[in-house]
């Protein structure tokens, strides 16, 4: 194996773990109400702005240690972004719960446009950025060349996997997680058992937004720049990852994200950077042709 392959593998895993975090929001919302949250990309974009604002605020108040700064910003970003997720469900989904399936899709697209324009107006259309917070990298010699893994990338990988592990624990081992799964499997029965399913659905939007917020903070740390339109492409990519892994499946979203990230990075490294998006979407087309339910999804069984 040569250096470029390994280097791109690391880059791809880093990018992919962040795709996975955002894909979780798509897959959980789809799992519980059977609809795609088209405003989710914008939730991510908002969280990128919020993490920059959070970092600036905390730095302004004289907080200098990196762990505290990151932890404080994460807390701030997750809470405020979660509030956005909750509000989106309240405004765009709940009033339309018993209407046609298309109506909430359209209202979510509306919310997405509103958020883009609101950020453009309030924050300006120019690209914004933050300085690098975590300098330096590990270097390894591999054959002729060398492998470089920045501390930021290591941090992203660790944080993203910790986020996914925490979420998996919540879904599998807590009362809230059981309530989410029950609502997903049979909403009517969940209500009969005393579950306030509206509240559970709100929680799912909040959890999805919180995961996107973690992703927003991590990507901001890595690239340092973002603009009001940043949610669109990443949103589509994460959605692709969710479909790739099997929409509705939580491990599927994480796996789909990692595969998409690695595939994209390898393609950029070995073939061409300009066509990396073409490559990822071709991958999606192939998966949809040969395994329409996605990698870990279950085929839809229609009862006759």
């Amino acid at each position: 194996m040569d250096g470029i392959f390994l280097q791109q593998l690391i880059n791809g895993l880093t990018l992919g773990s962040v795709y996975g975090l955002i894909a979780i929001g798509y897959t959980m919302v789809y799992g519980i109400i059977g609809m795609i949250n088209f405003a989710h990309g914008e939730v991510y974009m908002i969280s990128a702005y919020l993490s920059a604002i959070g970092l600036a605020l905390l730095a302004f108040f004289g907080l200098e240690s990196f762990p505290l700064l990151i932890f404080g910003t994460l807390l701030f970003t997750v809470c405020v972004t979660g509030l956005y997720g909750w509000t989106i469900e309240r405004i765009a989904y709940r009033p339309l719960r018993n209407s046609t399936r298309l109506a909430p899709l359209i209202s979510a697209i509306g919310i997405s446009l509103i958020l883009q324009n609101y950020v453009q107006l309030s924050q300006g259309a120019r690209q914004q950025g933050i300085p690098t917070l975590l300098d330096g990298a590990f270097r390894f010699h591999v054959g002729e060349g060398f492998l470089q893994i920045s501390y930021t990338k290591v941090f992203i990988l660790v944080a993203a996997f910790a986020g996914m592990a925490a979420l998996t624990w919540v879904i599998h081992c807590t009362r809230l997680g059981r309530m989410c799964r029950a609502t997903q499997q049979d909403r009517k029965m969940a209500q009969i058992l005393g579950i306030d399913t509206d509240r559970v659905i709100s929680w799912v939007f909040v959890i999805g937004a919180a995961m996107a917020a973690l992703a927003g903070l991590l990507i901001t740390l890595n690239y340092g720049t973002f603009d009001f339109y940043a949610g669109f492409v990443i949103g589509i990519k994460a959605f692709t990852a969710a479909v790739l892994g099997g929409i509705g499946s939580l491990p599927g979203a994480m796996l789909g994200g990692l595969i998409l990230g690695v595939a994209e990075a390898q393609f950029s490294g070995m073939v061409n950077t300009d066509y990396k998006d073409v490559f990822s979407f071709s991958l999606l087309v192939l998966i949809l042709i040969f395994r329409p339910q996605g990698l870990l999804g279950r085929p839809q069984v229609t009862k006759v």
Partner: protein
Amino acid sequence: MSVPLLEFRNVDLHYGPIQALRQVSLHVDEGETVSLIGANGAGKSSLLMSIFGQPRASGGQILYRGEDITHKSAHHVASGGVAQSPEGRRVFPDMSVEENLLMGTIPIGMAHADEDLRRMFELFPRLEERRNQRAMTLSGGEQQMLAIARALMSRPRLLLLDEPSLGLAPIVVKQIFQILRELAAGGMTLFLVEQNANHALKLSDRGYVMVNGQIRLSGTGEELLGNPEVRSAYLGGH
């Protein structure tokens, strides 16, 4: 006179243009076992589900302990102490048996969970053997037991059972009715919907017969068992 635990007052129910219930009035007193029998499509399951507002009654009143619950949310009704083992069992297919049982504790919290789990495993030893298996892998009879046990996990004041004998082997039906008899003897209030009139009426203090969305007959279990109309329609004439 004391207030009945559950009371239907002139309840109508529609699915679009189709009327499923017509002026239904009935009541279940605390501690009683009452069954509602009738043919397929008579409206029995609709009646049970209307207690949870799914679908909602279009006319009349449904009262639980004197409170009008006709327009209350399903989770409000459940947290008041009503539990249902519904038509089709509706266990959560991707959850383990134990997780399914824990879903029953939503209205009362986890305080009694361990104790009640043990009690359910004593009542239904088959469930203990299958404890960590996913519910979709259970047989029909085991799923029925799971649905009843899940309902019992909320320590309900009123247990609603929708056709617990449907599609089960006679020996399993016998087991399930034996357990229901024990529950009734322990003082629990049961409201049972059945096509299997023989088993149901033998178990019940009182019964109602439903035909085309209306209550046709009512009486004690024995009266109905002896009624010629009931015998010819629901007991195959013997």
